[in-house]
């Protein structure tokens, strides 16, 4: 099991270790600053932290000494648009929303998903970044729209563990985009998703889907799970065709999803009432778990607040470790819970943290 947790919060990075059966915060960084995304690169152990400074913009830091120091790197930035200094609509990165390593055989390669919808590539451990122009220039990108933010954003980057050149990017709101040649070409792949928030004739349009979070099964990478704006979707063919999972309970709205590392049929979700009321059903925070590929769900409550709870788990706020037994989730109201038994029972680790955006085992 992983005994280390990294949290990205509205007011800093928190590094937790489990020792003697209890979790505790052993290190902090960027206290007071919004940390939007974190990564520990399993290939070289480097830590990355993306900041969204309220006044001073998006920043990126890397630690090569396990969190003791955090030198700044250049952050992904949109290319200069000619005379666009006079154009108020010319793009500028406002958030690093996802950060993932390339394949195991692609050392130094990183992918960063941003608002306003640009995917960036670094081949040198974040020392420099290049906008992926083929995705930025796909026909119809000007019709992508924001979901939760004013502008569209890439929140999920699924790098196929069998082939690092096969990447699926989840966009709110523009569906899912798939490349099989390392980003040279992309095609829309959100076929089968349904957008209830659109006029009837547009509901099946893959280009306007709002997948909140997408995860890929490490054990069976053709299986992907999506917590969508209005439901759960699953793909069994590598993310090119999706079907809705309707057995989810107590509600189908939510942001987070995690998939078991060894069992593609086991996944966890944290439902909320619905999009216009983003709180737990009946004030009771629960985790919904399926172990049969979505045919049925268990509602897990033990150890979680069952009255007057208004915690929301954001899209990167739920994590599972490499064993599939240990989970952690952090909420918008600064609560952090962990489970040692696949979600059957939860323990509150901390209750007074800043709003939590990102939870990752490291």
């Amino acid at each position, binding site marked *: 099991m992983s005994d280390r947790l990294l949290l990205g919060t509205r007011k800093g990075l928190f590094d937790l270790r489990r020792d003697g059966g209890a979790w505790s915060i052993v290190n902090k960084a960027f206290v007071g600053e919004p940390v939007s995304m974190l990564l520990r690169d399993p290939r070289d152990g480097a830590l990355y932290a993306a900041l969204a*400074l*309220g*006044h*001073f*913009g998006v*920043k990126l830091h890397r630690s090569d000494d396990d969190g003791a120091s955090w030198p*700044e790197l*250049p*952050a992904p*930035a*949109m*290319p*200069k*648009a000619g005379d*666009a*200094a*006079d*154009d*108020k609509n*010319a*793009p*500028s*990165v406002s958030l690093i929303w996802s950060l993932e390593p390339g394949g195991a055989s692609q050392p130094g390669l990183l992918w960063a998903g941003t608002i306003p919808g640009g995917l960036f590539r670094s081949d040198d451990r974040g020392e420099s970044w290049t906008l992926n122009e083929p995705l930025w220039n796909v026909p119809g990108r000007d019709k992508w729209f924001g979901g939760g933010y004013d502008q569209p954003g890439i929140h999920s980057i699924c790098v196929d563990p069998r082939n690092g050149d096969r990447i699926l990017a989840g966009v709110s709101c523009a569906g899912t985009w798939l490349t099989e040649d390392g980003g040279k070409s992309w095609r829309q792949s959100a076929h089968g998703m349904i957008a209830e928030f659109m006029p009837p004739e547009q509901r099946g349009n893959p280009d306007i889907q709002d997948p909140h979070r997408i995860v890929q099964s490490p054990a069976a990478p053709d299986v992907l799970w999506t917590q969508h704006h209005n439901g759960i979707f699953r793909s069994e063919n590598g993310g090119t065709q999706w079907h809705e999972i309707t057995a989810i309970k107590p509600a189908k709205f939510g942001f987070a999803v995690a998939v078991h590392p060894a069992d593609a049929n086991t996944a966890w979700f944290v439902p909320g009432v619905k999009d216009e009321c983003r709180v737990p059903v009946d004030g009771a925070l629960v985790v919904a778990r399926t172990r049969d590929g979505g045919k049925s769900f268990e509602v897990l409550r033990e150890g979680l607040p069952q009255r007057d709870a208004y915690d929301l788990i954001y899209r990167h706020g739920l994590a599972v470790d490499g064993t599939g037994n240990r989970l952690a989730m952090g909420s918008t109201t600064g609560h952090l819970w962990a489970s040692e038994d696949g979600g059957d029972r939860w323990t509150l680790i901390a209750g007074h943290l800043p709003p939590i955006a990102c939870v990752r085992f490291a």
Partner: protein
Amino acid sequence: MPRVAFTPNLQRHISCPPQDVGGATVRAALDTVFAGNPRLRSYILDDQDRLRQHIYIFINNDRIADREGLSDTVGAQDEIYVMQALTGG
């Protein structure tokens, strides 16, 4: 020669002491500063070299008018003060 000074709140991220620089516009003066401190640029300007949304610049007691082009003119005795807005924190 105009003087450029930065909000103390920026100092926790990057060193940027006040300095006297050449330049007849805000843009020119800032470019001179950034030439000696390249990392500072992205703290003040966005990807398109516009003033960040929650940054203000004053020339003496007056807020600049051109947040995109930074074309406001500055004289040799002027002070350019770069500060963070109360929004955006």
